[in-house]
């Protein structure tokens, strides 16, 4: 028996070594299996908890009808636009606050105050100001992304050793070049962390916003499904959220982290 288990284990190790993607799928197998068993045992009524097969079928039909690709695109574009502006405004603001004592004194309390209000808390007033539309959604995403980016950029800028500033200055770097040569790369690992947090929060805020003000998107799909009592589509929406985030993290964020902080020895293990 023990020999047999060891054999299976060694097979698994060799398999995942050859195809690393299996390693990232494998942890989900028991989860899906458990889900499948629970639904097959009919512990809950099918209407309340459909099985994996039904969700896959629903995925197929929604893709076939073109609803899912269109909604997916809407959600991703909204997140991308929001993230872009969040980063484009957040990094310069973070560098300003991180480098300038006066800016820090003036802005830091404000940053903490507005961070605490939170994205969703703005929705009621935003809906009154901008109505049920893209502007409201974008503002919420930008608002959500910008704080983690700013706060982490400030942290990154302030954690650069003063000797690096001094070294660059005594090698003839001007103030402007210091930004590009020292401040930005020095803060980059923290900026990526901020971006990761910001996108994660932004993604959640987007779904919440779509549920409340949306006319399309994954959040809207789920909320719409609730109205028609289609638990299958709600589950499908939840699964898509998870998969999408997994893709963003492992295909975009993790490679950036590997290429920057880890190679430079700023991040260890």
């Amino acid at each position, binding site marked *: 028996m023990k020999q047999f288990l060891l054999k299976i284990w060694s097979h698994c190790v060799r398999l995942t070594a050859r195809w690393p993607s299996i390693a990232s799928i494998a942890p989900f197998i028991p989860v899906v299996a458990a889900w499948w068993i629970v639904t097959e045992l009919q512990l809950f009524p099918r209407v309340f908890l459909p099985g994996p097969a039904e969700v896959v079928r629903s995925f197929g039909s929604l893709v076939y009808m073109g609803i899912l690709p269109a909604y997916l695109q809407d959600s991703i574009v909204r997140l991308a636009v929001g993230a872009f502006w969040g980063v484009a405004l957040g990094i310069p603001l973070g560098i300003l606050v991180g480098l300038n004592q006066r800016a820090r004194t003036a802005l830091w309390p404000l940053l903490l105050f507005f961070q605490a209000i939170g994205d969703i808390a703005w929705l009621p007033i935003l809906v009154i100001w901008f109505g049920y539309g893209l502007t409201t959604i974008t503002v919420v995403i930008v608002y959500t992304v910008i704080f983690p980016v700013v706060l982490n950029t400030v942290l990154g800028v302030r954690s650069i050793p003063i000797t*690096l500033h*001094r*070294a*660059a200055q*005594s090698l003839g770097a001007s103030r402007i070049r210091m930004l590009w040569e020292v401040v930005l790369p020095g803060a980059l690992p923290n900026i990526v962390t901020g971006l990761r947090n910001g996108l994660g929060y932004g993604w959640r805020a987007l779904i919440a916003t779509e549920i409340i003000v949306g006319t399309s998107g994954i959040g809207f799909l789920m909320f719409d499904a609730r109205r028609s009592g289609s638990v299958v589509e709600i589950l499908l929406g939840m699964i898509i959220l998870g998969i999408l985030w997994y893709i963003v993290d492992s295909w975009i964020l993790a490679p950036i982290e590997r290429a920057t902080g880890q190679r430079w020895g700023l991040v260890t293990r």
Partner: protein
Amino acid sequence: MKDLTIRNLSKTYFDPYAGTNVTAVHDVSLKVEQGEFVCIVGPSGCGKTTILNMIAGFIPHTGGEILVGGRPVKGPGPDRGVVFQSFALFPWRTVLENVAFGPKMRGVRKVERERIAHEYLALAKLTEAAGRYPAELSGGMQQRVGVVRALANEPDVLLMDEPFASVDAQTRMTLQEELTRIWQEKRPTVIFITHDVQEAVFLANRVVALSKGRVLDDIAVDLPRPRSWDALNDDARFKELSGRVLQLVRSA
């Protein structure tokens, strides 16, 4: 390379916790000729790093003047290269890019500044390490990069702030010998800060002993070059000079 003149330099700052003025550097005057290697030696807290930081322009001085080639120092600048105790290499730049940094800031074209960097890397026997990142090197190698990075920018004065204090004893001896060799080849004007009396005597043309922010004495070192630890370890003149400097520093 140009000479350096320090006249009646002093540094006083207000300590808000004690509520009093503290004088870290007291009326220090020093003249370093072009191509001279001067070591400033003294115990920790004697003000030697403060003096170096003022010469580098990292902190303002509160009295006297600092002249490099006749021009007063106002803030940091490429005419004064600095080698730091903590190496201060840019972690996101390769060894080659670190050494080419100064020329790059001067606007030297990429091909030319890489040629310069390679030349200086060869001087410190670092050719193999050109494409690596600082984090991938040992401490001794990192500081070799630190030294040639400062030299590659051809500063008028090279300021070294206890550069070998954070490497192991064997590596330190090798680095000291290499530094004397490089100095003989390029003849930069060097101000070298250390608390290690033997290091100071080994490296310098002249040792300035410092205590409590004041210059105690100025001792010429007439040992022949090239210098090596093998030759100097049992050298009577080296022992005599080291003994004198040590006595000075300890007696104060």
